[in-house]
């Protein structure tokens, strides 16, 4: 039996696809057979972030409609033989994802995979509901900013009321907060909500804090999930988050400003 993890947020542009790519890659790097599914039908992007856009032949909707076998639609990742991508359809609309169809595909995937990561579209419409409906765990991606926090709270309400686990009265979905684009410098200046502020408002356990980092854009330019960039702070923060997802306890890093050394203090420079 595999574990189904939805990466969701309500608001768009907060880093769901970046996070899905990195978490799925991280799970595979740790030896777990993982598949990451793009639920954003009509606006697929996971294929770009994972650099497999030119290898897409069949997609999720083709499999649901029986136009292709699952094995034909799954794309093997270039870096890890334990990771597969199931791309979204670019031409259909989100209603093509029927609940029965999604369930059938997830059931088939769970026979061979340890983890199924569902990359949710933004919003609270059908596509987002389908992405979270069958989930066992949810990673709620949030920016330290008012509209993102409010939308995260909204999506948490939907997880509580409209998921399969809620509908069937099963044990609730395990929720994780992933705070992205965090800038300790701006928090210190009182310009940005702190981790504690967001934790207090959303009151769900913190999975990780991904610092605002230039490496995220560099990684997406190249189509290499940022978790592969082990030198960057964002890459390390994702590695830590994956370890915590697997049950390890790791201290949170990158929450404070790096201490400036003597030379930096004397001669400036951006630390």
């Amino acid at each position, binding site marked *: 039996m595999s574990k189904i993890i939805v990466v969701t947020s309500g608001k768009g542009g907060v880093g769901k696809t970046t996070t899905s790519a990195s978490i799925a890659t991280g799970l595979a790097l740790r030896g777990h057979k993982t598949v990451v599914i793009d639920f954003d039908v009509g606006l697929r992007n996971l294929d770009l972030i994972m650099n497999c856009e030119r290898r897409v032949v069949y997609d999720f909707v083709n499999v649901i409609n029986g136009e292709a076998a699952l094995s034909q639609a799954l794309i093997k990742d270039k870096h890890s033989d334990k990771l597969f991508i199931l791309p979204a359809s670019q031409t259909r609309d989100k209603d093509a994802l029927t609940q029965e169809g999604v369930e059938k595909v997830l059931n088939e995937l769970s026979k061979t995979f340890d983890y199924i990561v569902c990359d949710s579209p933004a919003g609270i419409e059908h596509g987002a509901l389908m992405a979270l409906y069958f989930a066992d765990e949810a990673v709620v991606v949030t920016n330290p*900013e008012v509209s993102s926090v*409010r939308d995260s709270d*909204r999506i948490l309400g939907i997880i509580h009321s409209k998921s399969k686990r809620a509908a069937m009265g099963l044990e609730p979905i395990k929720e994780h907060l992933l705070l992205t684009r965090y800038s300790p410098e701006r*928090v210190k200046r009182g*310009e940005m909500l702190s981790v504690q502020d967001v934790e*207090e408002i959303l009151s769900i356990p913190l999975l990780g804090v991904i610092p605002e980092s230039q490496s995220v854009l560099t990684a997406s330019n190249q189509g290499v999930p940022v978790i592969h960039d082990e030198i960057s702070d964002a890459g390390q923060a994702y590695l830590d988050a994956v370890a915590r997802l697997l049950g390890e306890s790791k201290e949170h890093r990158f929450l404070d400003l790096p201490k400036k050394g003597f030379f930096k203090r004397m001669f400036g420079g951006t630390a």
Partner: protein
Amino acid sequence: MRFWDYFRTSKPSTASMAKERLQIIVAHERGSHAQPDYLPKLQQELLDVISKYVQINRDDVQVQLDRNDSCAVLELNITLPE
């Protein structure tokens, strides 16, 4: 540092404004989403029935649904005029 702070006009940080606004809106929205969609309509229809017999204001009918673990209680509070 502390010494110089004394001379600064103490403005609340924008982050604390954000937090305060969020706490209010999130609390409000959590409350309203917990209610089923039919409550306003139920309230309106009750009002229509009662106003056939008694002159009554919209605010005089309160409908509230409280959920406990095992059961839900629909509470009607109707204030009739003197």
